[in-house]
Each structure stands twice: as structure tokens, then as C-alpha cells.
């Protein structure tokens, strides 16, 4: 922001920050296009961690990236079969 707009109290984001934010979003979209294997790896890793806490239906699990114009969300649908008693882990 230049001195003038600072003095005027305008809160215009510098154009480099606009560029960075636009790039961040566009790259999330670009990179998400090429990664079915990556999603599969992620799913496997997630299931391993979750299995420490609850019993889940591995075959019924779905992991995907949902994208719209403004954001990208990682959506996981994991059916739970049984939850371990939490006390058994806190005592570890």
C-alpha cells in the first residue's frame, strides 16, 4: 500500500496479496485434478489413524475433494461400526 492511501485511511489490499490469494485457490483446483492416487493414499492413512479410536467400515468409506468457485473442501464419509471406550486410550 502506498503512503497516499495509508494517509487516506483506505484499506486496499496490495495487488501482490491479491495475486497470492488467487494463485492459492487456483493451485488447489489445479493440483486436485491430478490426484486420484493421492486421495487413495490419504484415505488409507486416515483410516489407520481413525482405527485407533473406532471401528469403521473401510469398504463404505469415501474420500473426495469438493470444489466450488470460492473454496475446496476435503469430504470424508466414514461409516462407524463401533466406538472404543475413550477411557481405554486416555489411560495409555
Amino acid at each position, binding site marked *: *500500500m*502506498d503512503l497516499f492511501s495509508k494517509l487516506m485511511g483506505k484499506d486496499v489490499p*496490495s*495487488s*501482490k*496479496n491479491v*495475486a*497470492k490469494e*488467487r*494463485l*492459492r485457490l*487456483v*493451485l488447489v483446483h*489445479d*493440483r486436485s485434478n*491430478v490426484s486420484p492416487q493421492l486421495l487413495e493414499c490419504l484415505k488409507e492413512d486416515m483410516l489407520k489413524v481413525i482405527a485407533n479410536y473406532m471401528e469403521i467400515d473401510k469398504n463404505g468409506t469415501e474420500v473426495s475433494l469438493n470444489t466450488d468457485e470460492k473454496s475446496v473442501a476435503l469430504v470424508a464419509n466414514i461409516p462407524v461400526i463401533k466406538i472404543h471406550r475413550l477411557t481405554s486410550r486416555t489411560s495409555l
Partner: protein
Amino acid sequence: MGEVIVITSGKGGVGKTTTTANIGTALASMGYKVVLLDTDIGLRNLDVVMGLENRIVYDLVDAANGHCRLKQALIRDKRFEHLVLLPAAQTKDKTAVTVDQMKKLCRELKEEFDYVLIDCPAGIEQGFRNAIAGAEKAVVVTTPEVAAVRDADRIIGLLEASELKNPRLIINRIRPVMVKKGDMMDINDMIDILAIDLLGVVPEDESIVVSTNRGEPAVLDANSWAGRAYRNIARRIAGEHVPLISLELEETLFGKLKKLLGFRS
């Protein structure tokens, strides 16, 4: 046994050819044996940037297809004895050579030269696949613009999906005054986004236009700022540790005034 390095970017017009010419010339001036390989078949330009356009007899396609011996297609540079150019064909297209031919060519060249620098065409199609086929290392050139960084990211993904791990980044045409004002992405922004190692930064410099007009790479001009940046990059490629050049050299009026008045910044 030499090293085969591809210089690529995805987007056109970011300075791949200028970068190839300058790094190659700088490495040659350091005493290395260097061959520059123009793989932009149909749109060759490395010859004019090097000022060697009048010496071409045979080209890459001739050499790859055995229409001439490889040595016959190599054009000796005017300034350095151990610097040669293998020009692209101008009347053919990217399908005129195959990935296997490129691999063979690179294998043969690196027997003879310390550095084989490959100038890659823009895009991600056959020309790109040919250019990276025989390479062992990759340099990605980008500029501090959204479109160039986006394409660089795509190229980095494609390089890493092939055998070319750990490509290194050159940020070209950076304008320190704009960076200072917050109107251009800075070095850290771009490394942060692209998440690869930095090989060097080259400032926007009018001397590049002048040197390209003359067909004399800017590294030969002791006063060229960009030329100095390219010389540093060449030394890093050769394994030296060279700090980044200061981007504060482009003096503002205020800076000059401060110096006149005896304040050192």
C-alpha cells in the same frame, strides 16, 4: 561424463531461451565444455539469441534421424571454443523427433561435454516430453505473475511425475521497486507457493533487450545487472555457493539523495 539439464517453464515468454543462452555462455566462460540444445522445433530462437543464425547447416532433426553426423550439426560459438549449439529445425514440427532419439542424443552429447543445456519449448505436449526425455536435472523458469507461476506449478508436477525429481527455480524479470511497493510477488512468496529450491533470481533489465538485439548474451556485458545474476546462477550450477545478488541496486531518487548527503544504507 557431463550433466544434462533441461530449462523449462510451461508458459511461453518467461525467458527460457534467454536463460539457456546466458547460463550456457557463463558456464563456457568458466572453462566448461557446453552444448546448448534447442528443442523448440518449428519455432527456433536460441540461434538468434546466441547470434549464430547465419551458421546453421544441419539441425537437431538431421542429427536425430542420422541425416548427418552429430558433430556436423554442432555450431561453434563465436566467442568460446568449447561452446556449441545444436539448433532446432525450423521447417518441421515437434513430432519430427522421438523420445528415444532424444535420449540417445543426450547420452552421446554428455560423453563429450560437461553440460548439456536443453531449451524446452512452451507447453506440455510432445515438445516438452522430448525435451525432458534425456535430462537428468531440471530448471524451472518463472516470472512473478499469476499465469507464469500457475504454469510453473503444473510443470513441476509433471517433472516430478517423470524421473526428474527436485527441479530448481529461477525467478526471472523481478522488479524490486514494484516488490517494495507490494505490487509484485517477492521471492519468498513464490518459493512458498511452488515449494521448490531456488536456483537464482534475475532482475528485469533493459540490457537483456540490447544484448538480444545484438545476439550477444548479457553475461558477456560486465555492466549488465541481469548478466551478473546469470553468472551467479551458472556458478551455482557448477556447485559453488554464491549468495543472491542484492535487489536493492536499482536506486530510487531518494536513495541517491541519501548517498549524496553521505548516508549509507
